């Protein structure tokens, strides 16, 4: 395992540097919420993209506060009511700058478009008991309301009108006067004055949602059950954000965080995982259509005499797909088919056979990558659960057992957070590998080497955080001093983090610009272990007789028992 040693050598500096800083971390973070800061907390080499998180996570109170502030500012600057300012912002995707721009360019036009009237369009009725425009009943003046336009409706009809709209969805934020020819906007002040508490709350909720959903700078965290939002500052290419709920997602596509793979590939991969096309490929690769009824048939064992199921019941030969009634001694017995052999010589079956093989290759290739992607996914879920267990139970035990304050044990949490993050990266490298063009042999080799190293490095860290730690929790006296364990784990965390950061960068650069020390030695290492590489596949052989793909170790075909010809 010379390559592993390389990795250690290359990162020795980091190793010590980081074990020093482990203490600092705990000081920084004490009392703080540790969930949100992994991935952007530390840095040894100057990695600018990671130094400052380019986003902030917002809790509901923060959201309301931000919204209030913007409304207040705008209402002051434009000298309009808060309700009007809110309407203006809603129509301009909550961008104060946009509102300023259009307002100062064409105030009248903006007022007209959003329905902010400066003076009533109709005279408010002078009568003692004006008639409501909806129910046509007369009401005393104090039971009649109107928006800025002056169209009078009784409060009861207003309430029903607003309530219907609020219950109809977020469209209520754009509510206008009921008069069909009038476009006067209805503001929150009027809503709050007239509707029930429940509707008021619902309306306020839509207003908050609008602030997040209509605003290009903010998005809800897509994490299950999460109610936080994330505000993103453009100007940085790193789109991975991490919510306070610890869910990490990609700002661009809101799928889970997927660096180093780009959004397009992720979309393709996810689509592929859901698509039916794999089934079709499988059918094509592993079945032949019944020559009579065309139903796909899989041959899983037995002789070449196939009998289709009810109602077709056609008997045929698996090899030549001819009627079984023509077979027997004449064609060379029940396990062979001269007709097939002869025709194969003439190349009759070649096209269909080749297609079948290609499909089989493709489905096996996909399965290979998918399995590893899915395994890393579930490993990550497990690691998240372990992390939680560590946080809530084990850390306290450890603190008591080793007589260390919990703040001094932060390095354990750092290790687990790193494991979770690495599993995520590793998982996506399999989607990356699947879409790496086959002909680029050198790149593929490099990729598989890097992936293998990453996997090995992560295993070491995982082992240390999981197994080695147990020794300090159990009743037995631990094999080494706790401080040694601390520097080992903190060191491994740091090494692994650096390695994965380099890996992510290398993959993001399309493996063209591999400059880090960890990867510089690849050239000499040459024959990488190939982590989860697919090259093994090329070691299989195809049976001349039945075209089945056999593993390299088998001397005879698993399917038809023919010996391997050109072994």
């Amino acid at each position, binding site marked *: 395992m010379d390559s592993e040693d390389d990795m250690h050598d290359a990162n020795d500096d980091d190793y010590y540097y980081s074990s020093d800083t482990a203490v600092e971390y705990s000081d920084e973070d004490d009392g703080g919420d540790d969930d949100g800061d992994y991935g952007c907390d530390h840095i040894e080499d100057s990695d600018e993209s990671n130094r400052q998180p380019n986003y902030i996570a917002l809790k509901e109170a923060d959201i309301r506060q931000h919204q209030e502030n913007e409304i207040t500012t705008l209402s002051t600057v434009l000298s309009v009511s808060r309700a009007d300012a809110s309407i203006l912002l809603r129509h301009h995707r909550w961008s104060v700058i946009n509102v300023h721009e259009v307002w100062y360019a064409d105030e009248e036009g903006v007022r007209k478009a959003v329905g902010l009237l400066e003076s009533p369009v109709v005279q408010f009725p002078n009568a003692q008991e004006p008639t409501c425009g909806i*129910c*046509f*009943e007369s009401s005393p003046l104090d039971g009649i309301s109107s928006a800025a336009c002056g169209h009078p*409706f009784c409060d009861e*009809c207003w309430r029903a009108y607003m309530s*219907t709209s609020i219950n109809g969805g977020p469209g209520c934020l754009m509510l206008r006067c009921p008069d069909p020819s009038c476009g006067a906007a209805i503001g929150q002040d009027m809503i709050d004055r007239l509707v029930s508490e429940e509707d008021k709350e619902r309306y306020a909720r839509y207003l908050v949602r609008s602030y997040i959903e209509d605003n290009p700078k903010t998005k809800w965290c897509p994490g299950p059950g999460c109610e936080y939002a994330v505000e993103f500052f453009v100007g940085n290419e790193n789109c991975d954000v991490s919510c306070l709920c610890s869910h990490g997602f990609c700002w661009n596509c809101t799928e889970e965080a997927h660096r180093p793979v780009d959004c397009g590939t992720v979309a393709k991969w996810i689509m592929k995982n859901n698509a039916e096309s794999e089934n079709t490929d499988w059918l094509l690769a592993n079945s032949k259509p019944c020559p009579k009824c065309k139903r796909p048939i899989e041959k899983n064992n037995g002789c070449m005499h196939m009998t289709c199921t009810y109602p077709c019941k056609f008997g045929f030969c698996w090899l030549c797909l001819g009627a079984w009634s023509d077979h027997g001694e004449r064609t060379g017995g029940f396990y062979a088919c001269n007709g097939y052999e002869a025709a194969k010589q003439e190349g009759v079956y070649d096209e269909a056979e080749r297609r079948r093989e290609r499909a089989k290759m493709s489905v096996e290739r996909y399965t290979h990558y998918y399995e590893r992607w899915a395994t890393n996914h579930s490993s990550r879920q497990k690691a998240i659960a372990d992390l939680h267990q560590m946080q809530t139970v084990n850390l306290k035990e450890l603190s008591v057992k080793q007589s260390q304050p919990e703040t001094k044990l932060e390095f354990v949490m750092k290790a687990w957070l790193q494991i979770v993050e690495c599993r995520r990266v590793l998982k996506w490298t399999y989607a990356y590998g699947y879409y790496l063009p086959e002909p680029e042999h050198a790149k593929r080799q490099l990729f598989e080497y890097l992936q293998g190293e990453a996997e090995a490095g992560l295993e070491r860290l995982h082992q240390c955080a999981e197994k080695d730690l147990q020794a300090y929790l159990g009743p037995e006296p631990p094999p080494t001093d706790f401080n040694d364990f601390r520097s080992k784990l903190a060191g491994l965390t740091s090494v692994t983090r650096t390695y994965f950061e380099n890996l992510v960068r290398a993959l993001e650069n399309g493996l063209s610009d591999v400059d880090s020390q960890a990867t510089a030695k690849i050239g000499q290492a040459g024959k990488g272990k190939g982590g989860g590489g697919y090259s093994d596949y090329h070691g299989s052989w195809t049976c001349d007789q039945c075209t089945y793909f056999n593993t390299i170790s088998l001397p005879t075909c698993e399917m038809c028992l023919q010996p391997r010809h050109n072994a």
Partner: protein
Amino acid sequence: MVFIVRYVVRLKPKPVGDFLLCVGTAPGISASPSEENMRYFNVMILGPSQSPYEGGVFKLELFLPEEYPMAAPKVRFLTKIYHPNIDKLGRICLDILKDKWSPALQIRTVLLSIQALLSAPNPDDPLSENVAKHWKTNEAEAVETAKEWTQLYASGT
């Protein structure tokens, strides 16, 4: 019972001529509530003059849902009609019956709008794809068909 007040005030039917009832000041439109269900109206609209529907008497049904007037009334042609915005089940594509409904609208305004739709078909926003296509490719022929249908189904006999 808000809706009753509404239509008593604005829709009180007055008999005019032989079988025509006039709604408010709208000529050629009648609406009378069914005896079993006060929310259900039998409506008749005369085909507007200078339209392919001239001379036709079109029957419609109009139903006031529970939420009326906060929700739009449901209106449907019972008489077959060849029109790009009306499908073969008699459903009508009209904005004020859907998203543009306002509680300040009345049965009378709705029926007037439907009558106006007969005068001015809008094949660009079709409900019946085939009829609309016909209308756009060969309007003269489509109008001819509409006239034939009016003769055939809406002649009032």
